[in-house]
């Protein structure tokens, strides 16, 4: 197989795509929709109703530690209480660990593994604190994610599957013009009469679809990451993207889905004589992606690096199978005689 011939075919096809407004619209609008518009629409409501939870930077400087004491009344500043029982106290910039607070007022402090009866805790960082009839205001969680944060993290995982629809859908449009268009134009016969092998032609045409698709997919990943981080970081307290799961998804799973979409569309193109029919049938390639999306939503598995790698392995095997069928379909005799 000669790589220069593959590149000649790919370059010619890409030059043709540049003159096709439907392909250009798809290359611009699809990433815009999938990577920017829809994530904004879906993420904004979630983030609007999630309280920011990054712990306050309280700047507590503890001067004294009291351990196992019972404290009645008084005002305290910059003191660490461990396993103490406090009643009717006012505390600011203090640490409480394993304490019981009764009818007390606490502000700008850190409370861990403690119980608060009556009283109020304001603008403080808390971890495993039980409130009994107490007022809690402007509290930030120091430990594991809250339920809202967990949902947000999971939701970002779902967006990955959404993002992967980009390389699955774009080839459907391009391939329909590339293969069916060439068939309708009857330009395949002189092309097949050149000293180019079937494999070189197939590889060249596939490359011409793969390159722009993955280019816009990867380019749109940059604003997508910025957008998601912009919306989710204040809630989560950290920038969730890019993480390993997403990197595997975007740089391994997305190209594999793209290859699957191209290969399936070559087979579809060989059986239809109309660009739109090809697009409609070819778009069925999104079904596996949607299936994974639904299964993930149902909670059967959690999207993580291992899941993504397993999924990539399965898709790679499917790709090999479909590619084999595609090579069998894309043979000059088949094209000239049996392609409808």
């Amino acid at each position, binding site marked *: 197989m000669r790589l220069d011939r593959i590149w000649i075919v790919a370059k010619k096809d890409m030059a043709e795509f540049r003159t096709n407004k439907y392909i250009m619209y798809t290359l611009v609008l699809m990433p815009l929709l999938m990577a920017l518009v829809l994530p904004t629409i879906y993420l904004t409501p979630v983030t609007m109703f999630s309280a920011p939870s990054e712990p306050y930077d309280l700047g507590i400087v503890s001067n004294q530690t009291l351990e196992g004491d019972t404290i009645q009344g008084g005002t305290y500043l910059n003191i660490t209480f461990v396993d103490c029982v406090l009643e009717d106290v006012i505390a600011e910039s203090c640490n409480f660990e394993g304490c019981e607070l009764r009818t007390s007022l606490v502000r700008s402090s850190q409370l861990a593994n403690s119980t608060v009866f009556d009283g109020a805790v304001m603008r403080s960082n808390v971890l495993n604190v039980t409130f009994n009839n107490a007022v809690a205001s402007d509290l930030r969680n120091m430990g594991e994610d809250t339920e809202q944060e967990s949902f947000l993290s999971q939701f970002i995982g779902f967006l990955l599957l959404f993002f992967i629809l980009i390389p699955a859908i774009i080839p459907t449009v391009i391939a329909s013009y590339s293969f069916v268009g060439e068939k309708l134009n009857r330009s395949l*016969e002189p092309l097949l009469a050149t000293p180019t092998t079937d494999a070189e032609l197939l590889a060249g045409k596939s490359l011409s679809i793969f390159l722009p698709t993955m280019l816009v997919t990867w380019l749109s990943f940059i604003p997508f990451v910025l957008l998601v981080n912009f919306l989710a970081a204040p809630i989560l307290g950290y920038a969730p993207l890019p993480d390993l799961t997403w990197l595997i998804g975007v740089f391994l799973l997305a190209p594999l889905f793209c290859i699957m979409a191209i290969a399936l569309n070559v087979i579809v193109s060989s059986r239809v004589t109309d660009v739109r029919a090809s697009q409609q049938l070819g778009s069925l390639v999104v079904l596996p992606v949607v299936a994974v999306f639904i299964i993930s939503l149902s909670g059967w598995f959690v999207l993580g690096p291992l899941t993504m790698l397993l999924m990539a392995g399965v898709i790679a095997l499917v790709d090999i199978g479909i590619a084999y069928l595609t090579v069998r379909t894309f043979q000059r005799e088949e094209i000239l005689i049996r392609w409808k």
Partner: protein
Amino acid sequence: MIETHGLTRTFGDNTAVDALDLKIRDGEVFGFIGPNGAGKTTTVRMLCCLIAPTAGTAYVHGLDVNRPEEALLIRGKIGLLPEVPGLYESLSAYRNLDFYAQLYDVPKGVRAERIESLLRTLGMWERRDDAVGKFSKGMKQKIAIARALVHEPDYLFLDEPTSGLDPEASLTVRNYLLDLKKEGRTIFLNTHNLDDAARLCDRVGVMRTSLLAIGSPDELAGMFWGHTTVVRMRRVGPGMTEAVGSLPGVTAVRQEGTSLLVDAASPDDANPLIMKVLISMGGEVLSMGELKRGLEDVYLKLLGGKR
């Protein structure tokens, strides 16, 4: 040289080409004529290694079309003009040719020069940067011919090169093919246009699934009718037909209006005797000449059609 030996192609139960034996010499312009579905395009596709024969084989430039590695070499030596130009309509004429020149490994330094030469010869240089989709049918056909020649192939396969063209475009293409003939290129011409075949081809094969006849246009006519002399007279008098028919070497005589049509084995020997007899019987001979049978007559005779 192009050779076929028992070349056969079937599609299911339908035999498109049946045991075709052909030998086309280098530098020859060979015409393939026959009705639609006669197997002409299938033959060209087999010779261009686009489809494989079901039986038999063919050699182009000594290379076997049945061997995949040789098929690739054959495709490098041929230029194909299919029935439909099949150009990339959104690309310019120049870009179309440049793409094919690259696929045919035309060296970079030669490419531009050759494309310019072809486009200038075909009168398309000024339109080189225009998208082919804007061109008329004749202009597209010219670009398709240039495409088939961009790598200077030894063998040129042309499928209906003047089909659907207006008379002017048809004439341009025909004249260009005559120039190619002068260059000594081997040309395989599939055509319905018997006038094209008669003007361009050294030999013609009449095809309907199998090869019905092959030869130069004159040879083909001779196969069926021998030589016929037309004697145009002011009036054909009584007994003249019989008198001419009894002359040595004359095989048949028939009267058509005021003319006698005389079949003779050797017109050069028979014609002076015919003239002498007719004058001696008081006949006034206005003219005497050979009846030309065209390819159309051969075609209709072979394929059972009627004028």
